[in-house]
């Protein structure tokens, strides 16, 4: 196995060190940081916006670019959290707990530098773990059959819902189902019959995943900014840039955060590798763990600008971002909304995600992993000195920013199909998604359900055909049964939480708004 791994690493190094791929990693990190830093825009939007650009590249280069955009966007989001307390997405919320107070105390440069070093450490440790875990997992997964894949997909979708929180479980499951429903639109691949096309030729190929991603994230974010009159330009002015140039972190401070970075890298990676958990849980759990482990003196600093409190979620979310590539690359199951978009991109490149990719397209598999090393180094040495300049982005007024977000989203979709019907449909979906988001229904599960829907139906069909129409495939193969038991485990957790919450509110005499 180790020999195969070394061979693979060599292929990955060779692919990554092609000049075009080095440029692409650099560009990905840069553009990811750039988009991630814009208030309201997270990694899902950043990755979705860049997909049209990757269609002209070979799959390995395209995936390297998207991976760079992903961790660049996480890094950029942290900057936004620290400087203006406006996290672009949930994974960087915990960063603001201590990063923003530190910036308020007149140390924004130090806060950004600690975030950068922690991100680098979390990302690098996680890539080493990814390099070991991914081939092992892929080797095991090579023996998987259709029934195992079907069970895995159900587990992935259940896990996404399970991590949605005690009150959000059913809503997340419902959104997964809506995503699965949308995936059935178009021509059925097996029988060739049309489903929900309403006689429209434009719907014969189904709904484009890129259009759905842009509509549910990029356009909706822009519309929410308009609706809520969110304007960050008053919070951060370009003349404040000078105060963030002091990026010095002392040796003593380094010593203090070193154990935190080590622990949170491991925790973040394992959390990220769980289907559905992702960077958000990685950052919050890391923050919670370090708060519990901190001395009484340090604990009192939490929430007031603690360097441990800043380092922990930053390390955790970056490690989890890399960890989320384990289920994506080895099983073809996305661990988060962003990796779901990347899975969609892989399918669009004509690559079948999963363990077969490890055997048939090792250059894609290993190039993504090896490029992460390079990406982490680029993020540190390039972005750290560029932070003061990047921060000027926060001063871009919303009345210029939002039309540009819309423009890039629309053009991204239009340039793939050259069909204006997609633009009209994108607007319709964005309007519906906007209402859903205002009603507090999550969007990432829709994307996951949509992307896995076709694969899930195929595997279910094959499993039923192999077992002559019997659902015995769910328990007859030991692997399938183990996966199904894990799914049950994921279901038990939120259901138990829900029951406890119901009892608690009943005891409190709450009458509920029915």
């Amino acid at each position, binding site marked *: 196995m180790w020999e195969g791994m070394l061979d693979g690493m060599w292929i990955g190094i060779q692919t990554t060190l092609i000049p075009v791929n080095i440029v692409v990693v650099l560009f990905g990190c840069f553009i990811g940081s750039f988009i991630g830093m814009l208030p309201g825009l997270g990694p899902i939007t950043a990755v979705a916006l860049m997909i049209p650009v990757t269609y*002209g590249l070979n799959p390995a280069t395209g995936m390297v670019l998207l991976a760079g955009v992903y961790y660049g966007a996480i890094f950029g989001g942290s900057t936004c959290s620290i400087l203006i307390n406006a996290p672009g997405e949930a994974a960087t919320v915990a960063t603001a707990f201590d990063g923003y107070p530190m910036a308020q105390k007149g140390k924004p440069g130090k806060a950004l530098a600690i975030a950068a070093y922690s991100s680098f450490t979390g990302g690098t440790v996680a890539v080493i773990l990814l390099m070991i875990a991914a081939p092992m997992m892929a080797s095991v997964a090579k023996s998987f059959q259709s029934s195992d894949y079907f069970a895995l997909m159900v587990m992935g979708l259940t896990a996404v819902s399970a991590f949605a929180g005690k*009150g959000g479980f059913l809503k997340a499951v419902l959104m997964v189902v809506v995503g*699965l429903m949308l995936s059935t639109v178009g021509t059925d691949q097996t029988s060739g019959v049309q*489903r929900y096309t309403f006689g429209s030729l434009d719907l014969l190929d189904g709904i484009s995943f890129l259009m759905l991603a842009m509509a549910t994230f990029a356009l909706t974010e822009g519309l929410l900014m308009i609706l809520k*009159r969110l304007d960050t330009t008053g919070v951060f002015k370009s003349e404040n840039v000078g105060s963030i140039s002091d990026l010095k972190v002392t040796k003593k401070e380094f010593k203090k955060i070193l154990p935190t970075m080590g622990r949170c890298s491991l925790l973040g990676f394992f959390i990220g590798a769980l289907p559905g958990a992702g960077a958000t849980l990685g950052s919050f759990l890391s923050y919670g763990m370090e708060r519990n482990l901190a001395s009484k003196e340090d604990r009192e600093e939490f929430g007031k600008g603690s360097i441990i409190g800043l380092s922990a979620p930053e390390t955790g979310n970056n490690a989890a971002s890399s960890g989320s590539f384990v289920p994506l690359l080895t099983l073809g199951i996305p661990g988060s909304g962003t990796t779901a978009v990347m899975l969609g991109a892989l399918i669009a490149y004509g690559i079948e995600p999963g363990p077969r990719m490890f055997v048939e397209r090792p250059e894609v598999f290993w190039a993504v992993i090896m490029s992460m090393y390079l990406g982490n180094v680029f993020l540190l040495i390039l972005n750290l000195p560029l932070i003061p300049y990047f921060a000027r982005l926060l001063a871009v007024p919303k*009345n210029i920013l939002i039309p540009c977000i819309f423009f890039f989203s629309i053009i991204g979709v239009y340039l793939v199909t050259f069909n*204006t019907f997609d633009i009209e449909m994108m607007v319709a979906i964005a309007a519906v998604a906007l209402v859903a988001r205002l009603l507090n229904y999550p969007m990432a599960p829709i994307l996951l359900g949509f992307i896995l829907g076709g694969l899930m139906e195929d595997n279910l069909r094959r499993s039923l055909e192999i077992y002559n129409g019997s659902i015995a495939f769910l328990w007859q193969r030991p692997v399938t049964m183990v996966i199904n038991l894990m799914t049950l485990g994921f279901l038990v957790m939120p259901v138990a939480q829900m029951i406890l919450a119901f009892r608690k509110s009943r005891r409190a005499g709450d009458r*509920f708004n029915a």
Partner: protein
Amino acid sequence: MNSEKIGAFLCLLFSVAYGLGAFTIPLTFLSQDEVINARTMPFALGIAGVVISLLIILLPTIEAEGRRSLKEVFAGLDWQRAIWFLGITVIYGLIMKWLGFIISSILFLNTGFYILGERSLKVMVLASVPLVIGLFFLMSYILGMYIAPGEIFYMIGVIK
């Protein structure tokens, strides 16, 4: 009814319509006897959607955010601008084929800037024209993508 339940109610309506739509999916002669056919998944998903929506409607709301009324959720939002913006996006989609990428995009961006309150013509032009023309050159000359000129140029005889 709180906002969470209104969302579930809308999903319930969608699921019912989707489930009923499954009956209209045509089946080939051979697939009618198959264990799983083109209708199976939509039918199962329709039922799942109905069941989960009903569970959300019938069970108590846990999240504080979900207990807010529709009035509270929608209060103070700038709907007028958002609707205007969606409107110009639809128009952008409709005119792109006729006016071509460059003109329609510049028009869209400038109208968008104006709707959102930008009044400086210099800022609007400087933010839109270089962006659109730069992107056009990047797509056409560097990435080699063909972007069709607007139909209007053929109609008025500029391009033959």
